[in-house]
């Protein structure tokens, strides 16, 4: 909800896009309060990049409405462009220019005064650990350096809303953590970040709110904890030595289900607390069922993701 303390940085309602018969976005609704990180999570082809392209004025929506930084996307695209910064999935740096020249190009295009632009560029080179490579052409940069330069270029104009389309795809773990640190620092400075990712741990790590996108539709939305909590995936897994024991256990534990992957396993829903475990074991003892192995599973975002996007019938389950 929009308030004066936290106006919406991005609002989207009923956003649609199709290419011919192929529906990419089937009515997307979003609200991102300013100063927060929103992560759109989805597999390849879920519609993440299309969403970013629409919100950054690169392509027109097929239907619905959206506003970014208080400006309507359809009627004031120039005002939107003035407020946003975009780091796309594919690097958008000039390979023939050096790192410093790339940044100075952005300073000039943002109409920063000469001295101010130089200062800002030096500052960003330092912040992104590119000072040593500043005089080398971007073509010679490693993948991680290019991403950092790309993001640094986005920041030259001090955008209020930043779009990052899969910012860490293809990066090594160290560059990935560096990118996460930068994102956190930006948010601390009051910037709003709209991030797409196919990595659950990344969304878990960075995002205030997560939207799970599947086939152009939000199938779930909430904080990482909310998403984990609402999943009925917490269970105790029991493994038996023979099918007879399993049948016995299934009889005395009517709430249990057979594991689809393993014929000798049963899943018993539960939160894995000591009390519930004790009562479970007591019951098995009471009926003299031998259990070979017992493991407790608490849901992580992977479970949420797979449960929500794996089976089309689950799409109706949405939390708003």
């Amino acid at each position: 909800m929009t308030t004066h303390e936290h106006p919406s940085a991005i609002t989207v309602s009923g956003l649609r896009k199709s290419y011919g018969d192929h529906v990419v976005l089937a009515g997307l609704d979003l609200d991102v309060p300013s100063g927060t990180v929103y992560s759109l999570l989805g597999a390849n082809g879920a519609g993440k990049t299309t969403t970013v392209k629409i919100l950054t004025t690169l392509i027109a929506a097929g239907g619905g409405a959206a506003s970014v930084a208080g400006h309507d996307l359809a009627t004031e695209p120039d005002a939107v462009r003035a407020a946003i910064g975009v780091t796309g999935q594919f690097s958008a740096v000039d390979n023939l220019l050096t790192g410093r020249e790339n940044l100075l190009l952005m300073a000039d295009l943002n109409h920063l005064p000469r001295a101010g632009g130089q200062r800002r560029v030096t500052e960003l080179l330092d912040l992104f650990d590119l000072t040593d490579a500043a005089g080398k052409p971007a073509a010679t940069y490693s993948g991680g350096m290019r991403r950092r330069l790309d993001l640094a270029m986005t920041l030259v104009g001090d955008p209020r809303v930043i779009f990052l389309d899969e910012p860490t795809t293809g990066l090594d773990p160290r560059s990935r953590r560096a990118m996460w640190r930068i994102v956190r620092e930006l948010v601390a400075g009051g910037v709003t970040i709209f991030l797409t990712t196919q990595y659950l741990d990344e969304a878990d790590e960075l995002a205030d709110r997560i939207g799970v996108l599947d086939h152009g539709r939000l199938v779930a939305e909430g904080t990482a904890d909310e998403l984990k909590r609402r999943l009925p995936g917490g269970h105790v897994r029991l493994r038996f030595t023979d099918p007879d024991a399993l049948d016995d256990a299934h009889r005395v534990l009517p709430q249990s289900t057979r594991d689809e992957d393993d014929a000798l396993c049963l899943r018993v829903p539960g939160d894995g607390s000591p009390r519930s475990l004790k009562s479970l074991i007591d019951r098995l003892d009471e009926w003299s069922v031998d259990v070979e192995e017992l493991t407790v599973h608490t849901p992580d975002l992977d479970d949420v993701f797979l449960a929500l996007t794996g089976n089309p019938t689950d799409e109706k389950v949405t939390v708003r």
Partner: protein
Amino acid sequence: MTTLAVPAARFHPLRDSATMLRRNLRRMVRYPSMTLMLVAMPVVFLLLFVYVFGGTLGAGIGGSAAGRAEYANYVAPAIILMTVTATVQGTAISIAMDLTEGIIARFRTMHIARVSVLTGHVVGSVLQAVFSLAIVIGFAVLVGFRPTAGLGGWLAASGFLVVVTFALVWLAVALGQVSKTVETASNLPMPLMMLPFLGSGFVPTDSMPTVLRWFAEYQPFTPIIETLRGLLTDRPLGNEPWIALGWCAVIALGGYLWSRKLFAREDDR
């Protein structure tokens, strides 16, 4: 309603175009092999036509007394024009490179005067053509080109060449944008390279078979070459300059409108 909203700043097309021009000039300096290739090609054609074919062709166009020197004078304007077409081939290539590298997508999401992305290329290419033309004309003089034009003729010829370059560059900007790959962008302007051959560039059109002669006399490069030849050798021009300038206006306007339309289309890459 929101405190985020800021009024959009004004556009600065001149300033942005100057920035883009600086970028393109810097890229040319960083990628000198391209500029060199674009200059080398007309020079190679010049040497080929003057020293290999020149003796025979010279005798053919000027009677028995004429020879290689005569032909150097005849072919120089065509080679000069070829310098321009080579440069615009470079324009198409660098536009396509920009599009494949994704930096244009970045420019599209920025609050800048959009046309500056294209004007930066156009002005950069015109400057590159001036540079190449100076070198190629120098070579032409070395191999026997003896223009008789005075200062006025040279100024008119220079201005005319800039106009021709400007027109062809806009066409190349469009060709670079329709190309999905850099290779296509390098091939698409090829017909421009061929047209001087199918006109009055290398031999007079009246030596050609009827159909070809008809094409040669009406295609745009013939009046352009004739105008250039007339200006540089102080010959009467007739109405050729007006036809040439008319073609330039059509090509420039068509190229500009096509380029603008292509640039405004959605980023579907």
